[in-house]
C-alpha cells in the first residue's frame, strides 16, 4: 500500500473515530410522546409530526432524492419507510432509551449541504442513503415509542406518516421543471444545513 493511500486511510479512520466519539457523548433523552386521543396509531403519527428535527431531516433527505431524479425518488419512496419500519421494530425490541441528537444535527448538515450544492447522486446511492437514514431514524422512533409504553401500532402510524410525507414531497420536487423552483429547493437545503450547524453548536453548549 502506498504511503499516500495509507495517509488517506488514516485520515478517514480519524474522521470516523471522531464521529463515533460524538455519538457517545451523553445527551438527555426526550421521548416527547403526546397523546392524540385517537389511539396508538395516531399517537405514532403525532409523535413524528411534533419532532421537528426528525421531520426536517426526513424532508431534507426527500428534497435530495427529488433533486436526483425520478429513479432516485422511486427508490427513496420504497427504501425510507421500509427501513424506518424495520429500524423501528428493532428499537421496540431493544427496549432501551436511545438518543442521538448529534446524529440528527449532523445528518441535517450533510443532507442539507448536498441539497444546497445540488450534488447529482446515482439512484443506488440515494436508495442506500434513504435506507440508512430510515433505519437509524426508525430505530430512534421505535425506542422512543417503546419507552413511552407504545407498541407496533404506533410505529406503524409513524411509518405510514413517513411514507405519506416522502411521497407527497417527492412528487412535488420531482415534478419541478422551472429552474428557479429547483433553486428554491437548494436554498431550503442551505437553510437545513445552517440549522444543523447551529444545532451542533447548541448541543456542544448543552442547550440542544
Amino acid at each position, binding site marked *: 500500500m502506498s504511503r499516500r493511500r495509507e495517509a488517506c486511510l488514516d485520515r478517514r479512520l480519524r474522521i470516523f473515530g471522531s464521529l463515533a466519539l460524538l455519538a457517545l457523548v451523553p445527551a438527555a433523552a426526550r421521548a416527547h410522546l*403526546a*397523546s*392524540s*386521543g*385517537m389511539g396508538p396509531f395516531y399517537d405514532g403519527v403525532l409523535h413524528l409530526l411534533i419532532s*421537528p*428535527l426528525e421531520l*426536517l431531516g426526513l424532508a431534507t433527505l426527500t428534497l435530495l432524492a427529488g433533486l436526483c431524479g425520478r429513479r432516485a425518488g422511486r427508490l427513496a419512496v420504497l427504501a425510507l419507510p421500509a427501513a424506518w419500519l424495520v429500524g423501528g421494530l428493532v428499537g421496540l425490541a431493544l427496549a432501551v432509551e436511545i438518543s442521538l441528537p448529534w446524529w440528527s444535527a449532523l445528518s441535517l448538515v450533510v443532507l442539507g*449541504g448536498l441539497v*444546497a450544492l445540488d450534488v447529482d447522486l446515482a439512484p443506488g446511492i440515494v436508495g442506500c442513503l434513504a435506507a440508512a437514514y430510515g433505519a437509524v431514524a426508525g430505530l430512534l422512533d421505535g425506542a422512543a415509542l417503546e419507552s413511552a409504553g407504545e407498541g407496533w401500532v404506533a410505529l406503524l402510524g409513524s411509518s405510514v406518516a413517513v411514507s405519506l410525507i416522502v411521497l407527497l414531497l417527492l412528487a412535488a420536487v420531482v415534478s419541478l421543471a422551472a429552474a*428557479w423552483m429547483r*433553486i428554491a429547493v*437548494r*436554498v431550503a437545503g*442551505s*437553510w437545513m*444545513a*445552517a*440549522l*444543523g*450547524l*447551529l*444545532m*451542533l*453548536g*447548541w448541543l*456542544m*453548549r448543552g*442547550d*440542544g
Partner: protein
Amino acid sequence: MRWGRDRLGGRGGAVLALLGSSVLPAPVLAHVGPGEVGGFLTGLGHPVSGLDHVLAMVAVGVWGAQLSAPAIWMLPVAFPMTMAVGGLLALLGLPLPAVEVGIALSAVALGGLVLGRVRPPLALALAIVGAFALFHGHAHGTELPAGESAVLYSLGFVISTGLLHAGGIAIGLVERWPVGHVLLRLAGLVVLLGGLYFLLRAVG
C-alpha cells in the same frame, strides 16, 4: 341561471359540511409547548429586530439581483450557511474580534457595492458575503431565551434571514427597468449611510 343555482347549491353543501364537521368530536391537544412555539417566533423575529442586520440582509439580496444569475441565488445560499458557522463559533465560545463593527461594516460595504454596481467575480462576491455573514451569525445566532427550543429558534432565525434576502431580491428585480438602476443605487446609498451610522455608534 341554472349554473348559478347549481353553484349556490354547491356552496350550500360546503357550508353544511363545515357546520357538520364543527359538531364532530375532536381530540383536545393540551400539550402545546409554549416554549417551543415561542422559540420559533423569537427566532423568526430576531433578525428583524436589529436594523443593522436587516440592512445587510436586504442588501445581500439586492446585490445578488444586480449581479444576476448565478449570484442571485448563490449569495442567499452561501449566506445562511456561513452565518451558521459564525453562530457555531460563538456557541463554542470562540471569539470573533469587533463583531458589532463587522456588522456595521457589512452594511457599509454591501451598500457601497450596490451603489457602485460593482461586479466582482462570483468567487470574490461569495467570499465578501460569507465573511460578513460570519459576524452576523456570531452576534445574533446564539441569543436563545431561556426555556425555548433551540431547534425552533434556529429554524425561525434561518428562515427569517432567508426571507430578508428574498425581500432584497424582490426589490432588486426593478433592475430590469432603466429607472430601476437609479432606484437600486439610491437604495445602496441608504444602506451605506445606515451602515455608517451604526459604524459610528459601534466605534464611538
